[in-house]
């Protein structure tokens, strides 16, 4: 499926804003992303498998709250860097 990658993580994807990855759940998708782009997952997901405080992940425009979210082949996944302040 197609994954939109925010600018903060494009060092891992060779500058690509859209990448392909596979998985039946968000956890599997992130594991696949990490295989393709080593190190990327830990910058988004902490060691307790929680989505980091300033990262949001949307599946078909709905915010995913944990990594158990089920995915279908045609789903659209958007990763967002979310941080406010000066």
């Amino acid at each position, binding site marked *: 499926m197609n994954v939109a990658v*925010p600018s*903060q*993580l494009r060092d891992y994807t060779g500058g690509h804003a859209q990448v392909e990855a596979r998985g039946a759940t968000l956890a599997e998708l992130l594991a696949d992303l990490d295989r393709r782009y*080593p*190190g990327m997952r*830990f*910058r*988004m*997901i*902490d*060691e*307790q*498998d*929680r989505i*980091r405080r*300033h*990262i949001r992940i949307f599946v078909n425009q709905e915010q995913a709250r944990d990594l158990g979210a089920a995915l279908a082949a045609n789903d659209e996944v958007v990763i967002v*860097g*979310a*941080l406010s*302040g000066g």
Partner: protein
Amino acid sequence: MPKTKTRKGTPRPASGSVTLLIGTRKGAFFIRSDRARRSWTLAGPHFLGHIVNHVVLDPRDGKTLLCAARAGHLGPTVFRSTDRGRTWKEAQLPPAFPKAAAGEKGLTVDHVFWLTPGHASELGVWYAGVSPPGLFRSEDGGVSWEGVAGFNANPMRLAWIGGEQEQGPPGGATLHSINVDSRDARHLYIGISIGGVFESSDRGASWRPLNQGCAADFLPVKDPEYGHDVHCMRLHPLAPDRLYQQNHCGIYRLDRPAERWTRIGNAMPKAIGDIGFPMVLHPRDLDTVWVFPMDGGTVWPRVSPGGKPAAYLSRDGGRSWHRQDRGLPRKQGWFTVKRQAMCADARDPVGVYFGTTSGEVWMGANGGARWSCIARHLPEIYAVEAVTA
């Protein structure tokens, strides 16, 4: 400052250029001198936009650099270079606490705060201190990191650090000041803010508090065993029984095997006090140290006292202190120097350096006798390490 009287066995001073490794709130920078240390060239930024808490060169090979970084949006990591910063790769397994069992709340590394190369006999070994307080070790030059269970899983850890704090001190409660005994790779000291000084004689498998004599005025207990607020602790590499400590309440010295710290900050001028963050050692003279006092009164402004920044030098192990402010702002200088942001080079006479919260780097020529600003307009500076060619 007169040339140092050296003891037998003391290495000869370095004679080459000096490179300062600067960690800032917005990236890493290098500042390199000419051989005379009169001209300085700024290079960078590396990792623009990353919060860089520490950049350290491995003295064992002279080319491996580790950089503790995180970005505002992204989790913490360690970057490594094996060519003195020309190219970088990310650690394959950055420091991370173990995954908690189902139903338990596990720890999460917020940021890697401190980096220390291991013993000279253990090539590739590094230690990292993190926030919340945790200790990690790498045996492959920083490629992969594993928690030191003797500390991180110690049944006393929570008591030592006063519980997990959602809102600790500015920047978060952290483990830092990792010191390895130059005679014995198994013998380690660490400092924790808040927690105190701890010692291990078995490479981190077990730890014990080492805080006797240190004040912890903010605690209701008189002379507690732990819970102190270490700001910076240094073990002299040439005299590894000599420890110096700048903490939240004062400046201290400990000569092992003694167990009780002596408050050498009592000899500081009363109007200045002995609160600050950094503690800097002379590379060859165990009795020469520098501190950079800050205002720890009222609401803890954490700025130079009275807006008049100055370093203080002791050449007698803390029995007396001498103000060094020549060249620094005479008034309205309100910057702070953080705990990793002051260091000395290995030349003779020694150059002393500090970076400020307002993004300036200052050099104290001739052991701090005269200061000059060698870089400005940088982001808030967190760390300054000197590498002497």
